[in-house]
């Protein structure tokens, strides 16, 4: 009998192992490696949030909480949804989990039966299809080309829906492309969804505070209130408040779905860390100035990175509206040979050669189900980004 269950065997091993192994080896050898591969802000958690955690420690908030989170945090999340998106959720329509990832996991495991389909626009965070697969579902990827800003077209969504479609998952703004949808962009998508009442909607808005040039991401339940009773709106404190390590994500949705997710969570992890929940209350209800301060810095960095990448021969980088990633095409580099003599056969070869020859770690597009690109995170200090982009330019200039 094999040790692992078939459900686990279905998950592909991480495609980034080769790159992270090389990066670790180079760092261990003392090489100067700039990593543009992380999905987390380089900022520290704001002080008011840490202070709230410390107050909770001193007040002895160290006991089990409700499985779905403390009443105080669910109340704070309700107020956040109202304030930021005009969405009304009651505390019983809200669940708190150990990271937004657990929200997605709960939703899929609680609802999917074998063979149920989940529509995912790609490029996408690989955890979306992985979690669907783990839950016996079938990911249905819709390619969203760079020529449309990596955004989903309504007609492509319509064509992908079948009687077996259970969910449509949207990440807005998107990891890895930074593509974002305004309320207006979402309208035609909502129109399609209105025609297919058997399809539930999961919108992962975790990056929505990080939007640039005055862009305002919309969210489906607000754009089309008639979809709200089949929409799960997912969010968290990780990206907006530089709180990745605290592991607090949350969602608002219809009470029956939230209850089902709570039931699953009660048998898998119970409540998220109680101190982190207290910190998240302060993040959502305390001062919001640091969010804007971080957003401004990210915007400057995005402009810097996009500008520098588009001066690297063979690279073509769109200027996205949100998140802290860009997703440049490196099609113009494929087929060439690097200065160090490496043949650039595909995006992984590009990323490996760039790492090995210039000490810049990125993630290749195949890891986001969309090859021919690399993902660059600009959640790094500005000077470090400038240096990294200079190295990328030099690397591309050396291709022949």
């Amino acid at each position, binding site marked *: *009998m094999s*040790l*692992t*269950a078939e*459900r*686990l065997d279905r*998950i592909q091993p991480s495609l980034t192992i080769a790159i992270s192994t090389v990066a670790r080896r180079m760092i261990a050898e003392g090489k100067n490696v700039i990593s543009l591969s*992380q999905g*987390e802000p380089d900022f*520290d*958690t704001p002080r008011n949030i*840490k202070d709230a*955690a*410390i107050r909770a*420690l001193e007040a*002895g*908030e*160290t*006991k*089990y*909480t409700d*499985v779905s989170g403390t009443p105080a945090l669910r109340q704070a999340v309700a107020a956040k949804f109202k304030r930021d998106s005009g969405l009304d959720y009651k505390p019983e329509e809200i669940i708190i989990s*150990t*990271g937004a*990832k*657990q929200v997605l*996991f709960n939703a899929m*495991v609680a*609802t999917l*039966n074998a063979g149920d389909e989940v529509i995912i626009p790609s490029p996408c965070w690989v*955890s979306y299809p*992985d*979690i669907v697969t*783990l*839950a016996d579902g079938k990911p249905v990827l819709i390619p969203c080309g760079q020529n449309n800003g990596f955004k989903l077209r309504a007609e492509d969504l319509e064509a992908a829906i079948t009687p077996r479609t*259970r969910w449509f998952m949207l990440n807005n703004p998107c990891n890895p492309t930074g593509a974002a949808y305004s309320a207006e962009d979402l309208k035609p998508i909502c129109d399609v969804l209105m025609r297919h009442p058997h399809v*539930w909607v999961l919108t992962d808005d975790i990056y929505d505070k990080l939007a640039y040039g005055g862009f305002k991401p919309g969210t489906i339940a607000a754009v089309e209130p008639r979809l709200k*009773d089949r929409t799960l709106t997912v969010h968290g404190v990780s990206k907006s408040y*530089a709180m*990745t*390590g*605290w*592991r607090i994500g949350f969602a608002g949705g*219809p009470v*029956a779905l939230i209850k*089902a997710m709570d*039931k*699953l969570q*009660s*048998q*898998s*992890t*119970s*409540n*998220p*860390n*109680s*101190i*982190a929940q207290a*910190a998240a209350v302060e993040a959502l209800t305390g001062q919001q100035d640091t969010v804007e301060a971080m957003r401004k810095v990210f915007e400057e960095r995005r402009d810097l990175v996009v500008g520098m990448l588009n001066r690297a021969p063979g690279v073509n980088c769109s200027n996205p509206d949100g998140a802290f990633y860009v997703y440049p095409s490196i099609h113009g580099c494929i087929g060439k040979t690097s200065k160090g003599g490496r043949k650039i056969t595909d995006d992984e070869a590009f990323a490996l050669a760039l790492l090995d020859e210039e000490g810049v770690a990125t993630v290749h597009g195949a890891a986001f189900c969309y090859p021919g690109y690399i993902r660059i995170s600009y959640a790094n200090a500005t000077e470090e980004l400038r240096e990294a982009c200079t190295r990328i330019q030099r690397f591309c200039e050396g291709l022949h």
Partner: protein
Amino acid sequence: MPGFSQRLGRVQVAASVAMTIKARALRAAGKPVVTLTTGEPNFDSPPQAIEAAHQAALKGDTKYPPQDGTRVLKEAIQRKFRRDSGLEYALDEIAVSNGGKQCLFNAIMATVDPGDEVVIPVPSWIAYAQMTQLCEGTPVLVNCPQNNGFKPRAEDIDAAITPRTKWLVLNNPNNPTGACCSAEELREIAAVMRKHPHVWILSDDMYEHLVFDGFTHATIAQVAPDLKDRTLTVSGVSKTYAMTGWRVGFAGGPKALIKAMVNMQGQATAGISTVGQAAAAAALDGPQDGVQVQIDAYKRRRDIAVEMLNATPGISCHKPEGAFYVFPNVAGCLGKTTAGGKRLETDEDVCLALLEEQFVATVHGAAYHMSPYLRISTATADDELVEGLKRIQTFCAGLR
């Protein structure tokens, strides 16, 4: 709204949670409720854990942690296994999760295919069977009667194993009975397990430090080192250090199993809260004298509970070796009618009538796969415990 997954339909909300919610509602209505349902110490977390969390927050230990746990915590766990059980685990043989519950969930989700069997001695914590069913596995329950101190007999385990058996679950001390197998009794079980090399052993030692009267806790990988390469040893800080809300559990086991569990966790939650991990490391490495204070209190309360319950008409209570539960037999109450006029047919009837007529919240034995019993938690202040027990005496004296 469409239905949920079939797997979710196999899962129920734990009876202890349902009873706690009922008790809370009665209290909110102004009733003087005594709650003897919780599996949570009524002590504070140790000061060194609080201080470590405080420092972790302040120094910016707030970024994504490794999925398998921080190095600092894993090294503390390594020392703990060595110190408490003489067990040697390499760092890649240790995984950290959001509570001991997630360790179990990871292990079962990562290994149990539909139709695989999990042998569970009962009475048991409901989560083992629920997680197995969530994975479409079959729980195979092995009865452990009161006349054997609620402990599994080796020959009964032997008889329950089939070619489809994937796991044997051992929980020492046991929730809900407090029973704890001695090293000698574990050796007998180990002898049986040697005949069945295809079966893995999950030893849940969450209550390992809470044993009384000079009893020495043992764990199967320690008494049968030849079985260590198919044993998962699970523990955590929740019960020993009164750190339930922090949600830190851990497991030691063979590298391939730990790797599969970490892969599973990578899809469900990723790493767990960094401040919780820092606090857990400090609790494991710090002074252990607070633990003895708790052990003394639990022993005192166990003695009070057993004595008072055995002085109650219709009740017979076994004196357990450990944990903070007693599991009195209420067979003598069945077939009778309460002072309030309610006829008692099952332990659930006893449990509900006790709550409605005397405002004492307990959990019925059926929720732990054995009737007719009640589970009474002694993780309750002495005064409150005595008050609850007095009311049980009044309740039973009123039966006719």
